[in-house]
């Protein structure tokens, strides 16, 4: 640990974070890298998109995260008849004093689980995405700040395409990281089958953090040292996505900023006193895959292209 975190308060925050991580790992079996991704997105001040089949634990993850963070949490099940007001809230006329009163929607929470986001119409989706981007909601000309920290975990079912509105590429950019959960290993699946329901674990969970601590942690993570070689590496990676033959549109400067932020958060989470290239390498696929637009005729998937970029880009 570096001297920068010498104050005991920071130490306490940090150990609280590690406790929270351990707690979530206890509930979500055998997926430490997914849990790490969730915490990384949180510490980087971004949002997480989980793209996977139903029943692999997306909701459980979001739920466990929200409990352990200690704030309030909301779950929104997206459907195609949903309106933006169902997300952000609505102004209601109050008869007693002839005024409008704002009834906040489910987005007003520290942790929002947006389930099956691709089932809603683009209009409704963009209401949420705008809230994620701005950190505030404007209804009837009135601006309402969202609570801090504000962390959205959205899920999306990639296979069930009938009657869905897949998020447009430009909107995917709002999510800092996109990940999959995947099936558990045979041994872990057996544990899952024999042990009591995960929900009982959730019931037992104690909040390890509180919103203020999370804000402090985000602030600490953002001040982690990033050296020249790592900046060079990040630039080289971004340049590689722009010059790659199979990629139509490479990463934007905003994605570059996001990459630094995420790498810092990842390094911070893993108790590094500086941002090592390993952190960049680890978060890069989750950060880049949904931001790249692949040439369809190349026959390559974005994951393959990213792997190729990671192996060919020299680490300074």
């Amino acid at each position, binding site marked *: 640990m570096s001297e920068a975190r010498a104050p005991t308060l920071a130490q306490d925050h940090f150990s609280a974070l590690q406790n929270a991580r351990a707690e979530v790992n206890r509930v979500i079996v055998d997926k430490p890298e997914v849990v790490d991704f969730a915490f990384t997105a949180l510490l980087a001040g971004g949002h997480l998109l989980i793209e996977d089949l139903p029943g692999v634990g997306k909701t459980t993850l979001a739920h466990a995260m929200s409990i352990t963070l200690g704030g309030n949490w909301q779950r929104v099940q997206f459907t195609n008849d949903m309106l933006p007001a169902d997300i952000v809230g609505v102004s209601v006329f109050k008869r007693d004093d002839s005024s409008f009163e704002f009834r906040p929607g489910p987005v007003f929470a520290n942790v929002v689980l947006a389930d099956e986001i691709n089932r809603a119409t683009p209009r409704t989706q963009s209401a949420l995405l705008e809230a994620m981007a701005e950190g505030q909601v404007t209804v009837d000309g009135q601006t309402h700040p969202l609570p801090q920290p504000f962390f959205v975990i959205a899920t999306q079912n990639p296979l069930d395409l009938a009657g869905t509105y897949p998020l447009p590429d430009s909107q995917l950019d709002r999510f800092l990281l996109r990940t999959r959960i995947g099936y558990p290993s045979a041994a872990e699946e057996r544990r899952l089958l024999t042990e009591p329901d995960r929900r009982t674990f959730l019931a037992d969970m104690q909040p390890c953090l509180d919103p203020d601590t999370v804000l402090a942690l985000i602030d600490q993570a953002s001040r982690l040292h990033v*050296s*020249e*070689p790592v900046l*060079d590496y990040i630039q080289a990676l971004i340049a590689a996505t722009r010059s790659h033959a199979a990629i139509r549109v490479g990463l934007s400067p905003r994605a570059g900023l996001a990459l630094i932020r995420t790498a810092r958060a990842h390094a911070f989470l893993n108790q590094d*006193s500086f941002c090592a290239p390993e952190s960049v390498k680890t978060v890069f696929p989750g950060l880049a895959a949904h931001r790249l637009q692949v040439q369809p005729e190349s026959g390559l998937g974005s994951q393959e292209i990213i792997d190729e970029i990671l192996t*060919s880009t*020299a*680490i*300074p």
Partner: protein
Amino acid sequence: MNLTSPASAVYWTLIALTITASPHLMAMPPWLGGLFLVMVAWRWLAASRSWSAPPTALRLFISLILLILVFVASGGHWSRRAATTLLCMMMAAKLMEMFQPRDLRLVAALCFFMMTAQFLFNERLVYLFYLGLGAWTATMALVSIQRLESTPLQQPDRPWQGKLIDQSRQAAGMLVLALPVAALLFVLFPRLAQPLWGLPQQSMDGRTGLSDELTAGSIANLFLDDRPAFRVEFPDGQPPPVDARYWRGPVLTELDGSTWRRSQFADASSPLPEARVGSEFEHRIQLEPHERRWLFALDHPRSGPEDSRLTTTRELLARNPITALTQYDAWSVNAPFGPQTLPASARAYYLALPEGRNPRTRDFANELRQSFPDDDAGLAAHVLEWFREEPFRYSLATAPLGRHNADEFLFDLRDGYCEYYASAFAILMRAANIPSRVVLGYMGGDWQEGGQYLLVRQSDAHAWTELWIDDAGWVRVDPTAAVSPERIDYGARGAIREPRHALDNEWLRNLRNRLDRAQHTWNRWILGFDAARQQRMLERLGLPRGTHTTLAVIMVIALALVTLALALLLWRRDRQPPRSAAERAWRMLLSRLGRRGMVKKPGETPREFAHRIQTDLAAGNNEFRQLAELYSRVHYGPPHAELAQDFIDTARRFKP
């Protein structure tokens, strides 16, 4: 003295100049060489004290003086040495106006020319080190001049840029890049069948070899000289037996007082002997320059290279004195030439003795003659037996002999080196009415197992006699063999056990043999690569055999290809210079591991690499993982000078 300061360009130029001029300095008179060094020292002081250039008039005056001194030193005799002396002294004069980068660059570039000039005199292997050192220092000078000029543009955020080690690496790197081009030029540059400077010239710088006279001590002096005289290779890889290793040189036929001389008319060539007797030896000889025309060959030479001839006394003579390493093939027969007749005039010539000398020898000869009235061979054999039985000693003693030299040696001194025996024996034989002559040459040689060649040194010099025996012809008789059979079996150094000089010991002799093998390889493959070998090599490569023009075209094309390849290589290698000393140490560590087959992939982080090669390293070697961890912290973490130094030290000590 700071070799990276702005004045370093001057320092490096002076270092390069001194190194490249050193062989020339050693060859010129000491006072002139000293003057050169004084000029260098003055320029060094001027650089460190920031003196300015002397006025033009003074510079002109000193230059003129130097010019006159060179003229005086050469004695008005214009030679290659005089030319290089002039070059050196004019370079020294140039130092007085060497105050601009332009002049510095000129001097540094001329250093390369100075080295080329040295190869007009000597092409021995040791000069390869001179060439390497000279080229490197001259390149260092050019690099520092370049840096001097680009100082304002230097980037302050690269503090390591001025380091000596980087500068030397840069210079060495440039030379390494030049190597392929040099190799190509060596192989393909059109070669002349004749040397460019074919003038007979003193190339031995005052060293002595075998002469064409025989006096007391003339061979014994050579006994101390271990320089190679020539090297011999045999087609079947087997040297002739030890007692047949007589290498024939000049034949001395005239006794002038007490000195044996070669006939003035000996250069006339003779037809080849018709009858072939005995078996024929083919051998290839690499002869060191000796300023004379003899081509040494195994006794008795039958024919030599194309432009040589065999004289009436069976000497093999080249057309011109041997001033450079020469390689030739010779054929010899191991038996005396077939029976011939000796004309009466020749018989008288080979019996001639100066009047009024050596009375006791003449009396002894008459006695012998009476015991063996018609048996020349028996008489000679009897004398050899007499040598063996009487207390004759074979040693390096070189007592001066007087007027009756044979008398003094045969009856009083009885102690001496081969020339005493050969001379006295030949005189005795002539007195006994047997035609005789003295042959000079070398006897023996060290077989170099590693190089498969026979090394004959100056210390193997020898003298023996030949007698005319009717029905047999000229028969070789070596009186030294009768006195000291060891001389034949173990060579001169084996026969005389006393150490010859302070540096004469087993270990040094072995080292010398080893070095000679390297020299032999160098002679054979580098110096021996002549026009004919060049043609043969091109034919083997399937290239058209042709004129110099064809060769030049091939060379230009090949050079263009090599240059292109080098340019591509440089372009590919154009990677970022290291940001810090730690990164340099890490890269060196990686290249060390890379040489052992552990290559870091580009997309691997230090920790990942250490993790991957863990199994390749020695068992339980956790050291490299710790190193990689330390490097990660130093390189990617916040600046930490102590940690960085710690890493550099550990990396240096690390043994994969």
